[in-house]
């Protein structure tokens, strides 16, 4: 049957003209052997040119003979001789062992010899046979006939990666593993006539080539460059696809991850090959995920907005209740302040208190405790060691103990006390830098401006850069700083120094700059001054005092910490005295300062 088809094929395409010729012969036409003995059989491959690659298939009567050795491979009665030669003749010596008596035989079923440079394929037309007569009884009963199992190898081919493979005539033999829709079409591979397996629209022509181990490998033929390219399989959307280089269609390969993919129905399209071997869309715009992302993001955002609005609503409700409570408390505390003003006979302040609905600053039961490790712990290692030893212990340091006072609009509240009594801690709590352990400070933190000395400057930057940095941190806009820049420089008396780095400044210069920046704006509604009125030389001190007074007149409420009793007495309307975290006294500056001095004198 296979032979008949071959004939048909030859007839259709014409008998190929073989420029080279090759022949495979046995050492003898007949051999005789004793049953159970080993004997050699010579095989000679001859060509009229130097042999390049060769592929010879032999078949032997496996019922009567046993193959012992001498060839490249043997399987189920078929011996393959293959390799690369350097001369025009190649010799093999095969060894067989006879198993049983009778008429056995060895036959050449196919022989393809390619010349040295791979341009010509010579197919041996004369398939030799050798008869083997084995003495003894015939236990096989089979008549050996090799011609029916003729191989379809008709030539060798070199793939683009340099591997040598054997071309099979698909009009005679098609691998049983083919699972895609194809039609067989005659064509040429180099000088050899072949049958291509082609998909419906003819874009892909494949050949299944045999390797030396008789395994089929699909290759795609490119009619543009006459090359064959390996074909692989991969999954695309979970379905098996064959894919190959886009060079098959003659296209220039720009991106090696883009391949030509063919599904099992033979539909061809471009695809992107991912590293794990699966195929995806090759197109530039892949709409599906975009479609999915947009709603996904939208849903997420909607959820976020929903959660945020619920939280916001809840907070609002809680705040309302809180406010009501505070109102009652405020009224009670205002009465206390009013009584104090009444006692001192200050009518103006009484009016101010009466007019203001609630205090600007209300310090309510503020207690501040610091945990101080009695032993320095400098990291996890230390911590663990000391923890194991049981040496971790804390001492509680009460910096502020139940401080209570209100400050009303327009008041200048002085805070006095010896060093370490908690004044600065109190200011930090009021300004919001620290949170009290207990109690609460009611104040609009947005209106608060804390002015302390020498902090917040970046020594590596110039004075100009520091003005902008500090200004921005205080909350000035860029435009405001541009407008007031000259004013700040003038006030700080630092003309000509602004491009210098601050680290080269004296401490007085730094303080002046700090004061100038902090007071540049329209007076902050609540100004907290921590020892700033003792800055610089006498002239600057006067100037800054003047500015602070301007601010007070402008309606600022001031909290003033100072060790200078003069400053306190001159500027404050009320004074709080804090001693070792406890509130000692609050009231008239004169009274409180007097008491403070007396205590100081007693301690000396």
């Amino acid at each position, binding site marked *: 049957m296979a032979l008949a088809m071959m004939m048909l094929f030859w007839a259709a395409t014409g008998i190929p003209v073989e420029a080279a010729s090759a022949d495979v012969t046995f050492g003898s036409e007949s051999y005789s052997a004793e049953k159970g003995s080993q004997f050699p059989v010579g095989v000679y491959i001859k060509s009229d040119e130097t042999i390049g690659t060769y592929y010879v298939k032999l078949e032997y009567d496996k019922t009567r003979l046993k193959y012992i050795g001498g060839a490249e491979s043997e399987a189920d009665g078929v011996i393959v001789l293959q390799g690369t030669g350097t001369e025009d003749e190649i010799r093999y010596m095969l060894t067989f062992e006879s198993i049983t008596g009778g008429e056995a035989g060895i036959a050449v079923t196919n022989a393809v010899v390619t010349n040295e440079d791979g341009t010509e394929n010579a197919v041996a037309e004369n398939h030799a046979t050798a008869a083997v007569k084995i003495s003894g009884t015939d236990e096989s009963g089979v008549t050996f006939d090799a011609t029916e199992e003729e191989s379809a190898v008709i030539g060798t081919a070199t793939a683009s990666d340099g591997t040598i493979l054997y071309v099979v005539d698909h009009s005679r033999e098609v691998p049983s593993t083919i699972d895609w829709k194809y039609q067989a079409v005659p064509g040429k591979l180099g000088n050899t006539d072949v049958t291509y397996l082609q998909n419906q629209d003819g874009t892909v022509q494949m050949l299944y080539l045999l390797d030396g181990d008789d395994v089929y490998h699909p290759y795609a033929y490119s009619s543009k460059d006459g090359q064959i390219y390996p074909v692989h399989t991969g999954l695309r959307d979970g379905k098996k696809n064959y894919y190959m280089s886009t060079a098959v269609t003659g296209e220039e390969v*720009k*991106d*090696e*991850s883009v391949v030509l993919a063919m599904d099992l129905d033979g539909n061809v399209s471009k695809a*992107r090959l991912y*590293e*794990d071997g699966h195929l*995806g*869309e090759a197109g*530039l*715009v*892949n709409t*599906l*995920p*975009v479609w*999915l*992302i947009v709603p*996904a*993001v939208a849903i*997420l955002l909607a959820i*976020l907005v929903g959660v945020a609005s619920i939280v916001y609503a809840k907070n609002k409700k809680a705040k309302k209740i809180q406010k009501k409570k505070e109102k009652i408390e405020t009224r009670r505390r205002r009465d206390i302040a009013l009584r104090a003003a009444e006692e001192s006979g200050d009518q103006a302040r009484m009016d101010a208190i009466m007019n203001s609905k609630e205090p600007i600053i209300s310090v309510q039961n503020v207690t501040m405790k*610091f*945990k101080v490790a009695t032993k320095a712990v*400098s*990291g*996890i*290692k230390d911590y663990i060691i000391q923890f194991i030893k049981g040496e971790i212990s804390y001492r509680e340091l009460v910096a502020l103990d139940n401080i209570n006072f209100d400050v009303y609009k327009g008041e200048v509240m002085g805070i006095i006390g010896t060093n370490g009594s908690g004044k600065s801690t109190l200011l*930090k709590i009021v*300004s*919001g*830098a*620290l*949170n009290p352990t207990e109690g609460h400070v009611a104040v609009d*933190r*947005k209106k*608060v401006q*804390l002015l*302390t000395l020498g*902090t*917040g400057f*970046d020594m*590596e*930057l110039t004075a100009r*850069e520091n003005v*902008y*940095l500090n*200004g*921005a*941190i*205080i*909350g*000035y*806009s*860029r435009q405001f700083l541009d407008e007031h820049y000259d004013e700040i420089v003038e006030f700080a008396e630092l003309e000509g120094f602004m491009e210098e780095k601050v680290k080269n400044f004296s401490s007085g210069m730094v303080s002046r700059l700090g004061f100038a920046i902090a007071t540049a704006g329209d007076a902050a509604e609540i100004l907290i001054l921590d020892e700033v009125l003792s800055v610089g030389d006498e002239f600057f001190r006067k100037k800054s005092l003047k500015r602070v007074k301007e601010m007070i007149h402008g309606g600022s409420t001031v909290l003033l910490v100072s060790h200078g009793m003069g400053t306190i007495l001159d500027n404050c309307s009320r004074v709080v005295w804090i001693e070792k975290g406890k509130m000692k006294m609050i009231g008239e500056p004169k009274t409180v300062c007097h008491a403070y001095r007396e205590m100081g004198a007693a301690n000396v």
Partner: protein
Amino acid sequence: MSREYLNALWELTKRELRRKYARSYLGILWSVFYPLARMALVVFLFTHIFSKPIDRYPAYYFTGYLLYEFFYVAVYTSVTTLRDNKNLIIKSKLPREMFILSRVNTAFINFGLGCIPYVGVLLFYKAQPSLISFLVVFDVFFLWLFVSGVAYLVSILYVFVRDTKNIVQHLLSILRFFVAMFYAKEWVAPGVQKFIEYNPPYVFIKVARDMVIYGVMPELAYLLKMIIYGISFFVIGKFIFNKCKDNVLVRL
């Protein structure tokens, strides 16, 4: 966020940049030049070692390097922010997040400068950008969210545990090996691959590579991970930061 905060954030960021380049002649050009030099070195060293080449390797490496470096610098510099800015924090009523964000944004600007040579590399190695490439802004946005979230977390943690600085530094250098920066994910063991796939910095790098270099949409799983990592880290980081920020100053 009100405008005055934005101004403060910008000034703080400018300060960080000025400090970074305070004593160098090339100044900010370092941010442009160094990533390019680094890419050149890595490409020179590795291109011929690999048996399976990576498509457009220089651009592949550069993408990973730029994104990871943004993450690394932002997180690493954020650790000590609260302590470094102690004085300013006491003085100002600026939300404390601003100080963290200023460091993140400094690293972000650094990243932006690195993108200048990156565009050149993309052009030179004929990347295949498409309309999808523009979507990379989302990748960068979610990366920024993710980085900010992590920065919040580590800066707070540092206040309580000083070793955080060392831990973060070492973790970041180890993590660098698990983002497939200079190799392909497929080259490592399957277990490690799994880890890399879930490693947040890798997700952002992978998405950027697909979009910018190859002009394709990454797999949906990566897009979802990108969004989830970005939003969740930011929300969690900010939440913990806000919970703890008031107790922080006492410990500084």
